[in-house]
């Protein structure tokens, strides 16, 4: 049953109490109808219902936008994570095969395109603090480019990842992940 039903039900004892109070303590309920007060009451209820509907609609739209943005950020994170898995494999086998090179390129391209899609999506959203969220997205892009440099910079793809290069990949991946989490939390709190 809806919340309105329960509110109505719990208001009933209050109505009985007021009527009882009037009956037994000598107060009287005015029974004459005052047109101005009825109009006033109707307008007040109308405005309350209108604003409740407007805010509910806004909230619902914002919830959808937030979910879309968060899903997009998570998708980028998945591509970066997949790329990390391939890099681990390359490090373990002490070689970057053509097939792994291709996988790394594809995951990085998907992540880069995910960032481009995130920027377009944010341009469509109507958050009050959009500028701040866009700053987080720019930070995410910078972290991604640092990660890409760590994965495909240096002497990639001709020399395998040594211990130093792998540590660099881990470090930049960690920075990316932290930025991603901050961006998700910020979007979730967006007004």
């Amino acid at each position, binding site marked *: 049953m809806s919340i309105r039903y329960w509110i109505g039900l719990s208001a009933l004892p209050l109505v009985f109490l007021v009527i009882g109070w009037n009956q037994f303590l000598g107060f009287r309920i005015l029974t004459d109808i005052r047109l101005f007060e009825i109009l006033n009451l109707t307008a007040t209820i109308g405005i309350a219902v209108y604003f409740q509907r407007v805010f509910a609609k806004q909230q619902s739209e914002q919830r959808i936008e937030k979910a879309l943005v968060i899903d997009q950020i998570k998708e980028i994170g998945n591509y970066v994570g997949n790329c990390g898995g391939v890099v681990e494999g390359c490090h373990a086998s002490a070689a970057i095969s053509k097939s792994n090179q291709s996988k790394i390129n594809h995951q990085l391209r998907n992540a880069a395109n995910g960032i481009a899609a995130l920027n377009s999506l944010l341009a469509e959203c109507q958050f009050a603090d959009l500028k701040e969220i866009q700053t987080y997205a720019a930070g995410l892009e910078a972290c991604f480019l640092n990660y890409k440099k760590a994965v495909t910079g240096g*002497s*990639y*793809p*001709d020399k395998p990842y040594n211990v130093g290069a792998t540590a660099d990949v881990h470090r930049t991946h960690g920075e990316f992940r932290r930025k991603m989490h901050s961006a998700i939390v910020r979007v979730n709190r967006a007004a």
Partner: protein
Amino acid sequence: MNTAQLVRIIIAKDFSDTPGGRYRSDGAASGEEFREFQLKPKFLNAQREGTILEIDLDGAEGYATSFLEEAFGGLAREYGAQSVLKTLKFTCADEPLLIREIESYISSAK
């Protein structure tokens, strides 16, 4: 109105659809090879004639940072970032973010 003529390099068609790493010693289709045999001659020609050199990045499998930095950052180290940014124009529908990435390598080339 800009009446400069446009000259174009389509990397996937004119060079390789699987660009490689940094140096020629590292293997096939390196950034150094691309810069020396494709980019630099056309860049100098475009500069001489006051035209724009368009670099089309579409159709390739993907670009490693090592390739991009050596090709475009290397050109900027030799001829200056401003001159390279003024002469080159990039297009990439496959991965639009690449353009900002390359421009950052050109701007930070030392």
